């Protein structure tokens, strides 16, 4: 498989939230039942694009997330496709509404959270959500996805509209590195090998995918052949692919801008424990809150960079039988 070098498009490209907001606006011409719910934060979540184009389909809920979330269930009950938007951390505020009024009732609602992880940066710990993947993943009926670049975000935006049922999707605040091209094919429940390798597999989602590719390139210089899997579908997780990777590479590093408890790493570990177990090292925040700082500074302090993925890869190889 051809290696794909991540390309930084910060100057010209989009953050994941912008990519989402623009694509949603575009697709809403086709998907006429889409309505967007916002809690006074549209400029931050990217749905200001939708608001400008479709003011009548934009539902301002005020700073009242619990009502917004449960209301979305009711909107879906009338046949609409509600998109609930706010920061990931405020989704947690309404998680019980997401559980009962959306997931348990099995309503066709899409929960799209911007500002996940330490990628939030200077706003600090109160805004940096490091627990959403694990919380939402444990709710029955709820699909959880975290795309890695603007191309995948566009495809995922269409996929969540085509899918009938509750979905939680992470976007992102920072300008992102472009990793994929238009030949990519996002599918709910599928992981994709972005770079092949035989010594270990790095499984990543969101902003950690670009860092994982950088890590794999660097590892190659040290004679270590690392496979990189973009596991944007955290639930359902691609257990078949993980099993193959376990058989073929025998060691794993997981990487996520999220706590190592219960998120992507947890999902990978659960899956492998039932198929072909291999040693795993987890890159993510280690049961701590973040703080103010620039995203790259925070990633360094909390050990989320390619440097830390490399270290984890070398460590897991010492455990490989």
């Amino acid at each position, binding site marked *: 498989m051809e290696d794909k070098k991540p390309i930084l498009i910060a100057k010209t490209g989009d953050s994941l939230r912008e990519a989402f907001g623009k694509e949603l606006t575009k697709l809403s011409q086709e998907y006429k039942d889409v309505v967007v719910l916002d809690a006074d934060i549209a400029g931050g979540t990217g749905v200001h694009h939708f608001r400008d184009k479709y003011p009548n389909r934009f539902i301002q809920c005020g700073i009242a997330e*619990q009502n917004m979330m449960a209301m979305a*269930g009711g*909107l879906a009950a*009338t046949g*609409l496709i*509600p998109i609930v938007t706010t920061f990931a951390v405020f989704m947690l505020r309404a998680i019980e509404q997401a559980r*009962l009024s959306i997931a348990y*009732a099995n309503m066709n609602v899409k929960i799209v959270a911007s500002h996940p992880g330490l990628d939030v940066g200077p706003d600090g710990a109160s805004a940096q959500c490091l627990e959403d993947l694990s919380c939402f993943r444990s709710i029955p009926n709820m699909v959880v996805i975290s795309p890695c670049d603007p191309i995948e975000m566009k495809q995922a935006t269409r996929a969540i509209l085509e899918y009938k049922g509750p979905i939680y999707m992470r976007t992102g605040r920072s300008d992102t590195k472009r990793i994929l091209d238009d030949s990519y094919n996002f599918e709910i429940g599928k992981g994709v090998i972005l770079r092949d390798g035989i010594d270990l597999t790095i499984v990543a989602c969101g902003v950690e995918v670009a860092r994982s590719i950088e890590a794999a390139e660097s590892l190659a210089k040290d004679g270590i052949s690392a496979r990189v899997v973009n596991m944007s579908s955290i639930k359902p997780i691609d257990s078949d692919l993980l099993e193959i990777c376990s058989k073929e590479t025998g060691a794993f590093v997981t990487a996520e801008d999220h706590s190592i408890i219960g998120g992507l790493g947890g999902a990978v570990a659960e899956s492998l424990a039932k198929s072909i177990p291999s040693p795993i090292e987890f890159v993510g925040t280690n049961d701590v809150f973040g703080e103010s700082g620039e995203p790259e500074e925070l990633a360094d302090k909390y050990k989320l960079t390619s440097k830390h993925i490399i270290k984890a890869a070398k460590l897991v190889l010492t455990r490989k039988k």
Partner: protein
Amino acid sequence: MDNNWLRRRALESIYHAKSGHPGGVLSCIDILECLFSSILEYDLNNLDSVHRDRFILSKGHSAPALYAVAAKAGIIDEGRLNGLRKIDHELQAHTHRGATPWVEASTGSLGQGFSFAIGEAHGLKFQNIKNRVYVMIGDGEMQEGEIWEGAMFASHHNLNNLCAIADYNKLQSDDSNENIMGLEPLYDKWKSFGWNVLEIDGHNEDEIINAFKLAKDCSSAPTFIIAHTIKGKGVSYMENVPAWHGSLKLSDDELRDALIELGASKNEVEVAIHGR
């Protein structure tokens, strides 16, 4: 209007479930019966029609009242009522969408059914569907912040197709509203939140039906009906006793006394206790 049959059937189902919330069931059942028999517009043969009025029981723990009323209306099979709260049965302790016909929302966590109803009201208005949405909340439920989030939303967006009814029996799980966390002045609160507020006797059929008509006529705001009710209404040993909210289990003798007070014959009592 005594609705004794409904009261008996609801209590019987709670008795067989060996748990449940009889007090609030008896306080709200007259309002539910009025809604289903006189107010709600729906087609019994097409319950899923988009063009139907919606009802949401946000105080989901009163589900046995809704089930009894729905059985009387022919929406659900009366023979299923005693399966309440039993495993593999469609009559969940708290109403659950998809499990039982007519049930719009999954409830049981207070405040959420109210928001769900607001979503439906907004969705219907948005799609120019003229049907109305009715939602019943409990009094203790108004201690949830979500209620006031929703109250602001509904008036801000002038959801005049929405009518909320508070089953104001003055008692909640552990004690009176007043002792737990006071709700008054309730009328003024809802008025100040921009709602059309009506106050009625929630056991008086004429007042109930008239209030729903007034609500329908109001185009400038959503309507909030404060229905003064008696917790445990119709069963003297339950009336105004907080413990009958849900913490007591109905004994054989208690059910017997209740059914007799509600006009059951001896034979009906035996059938109720020993099964149908």
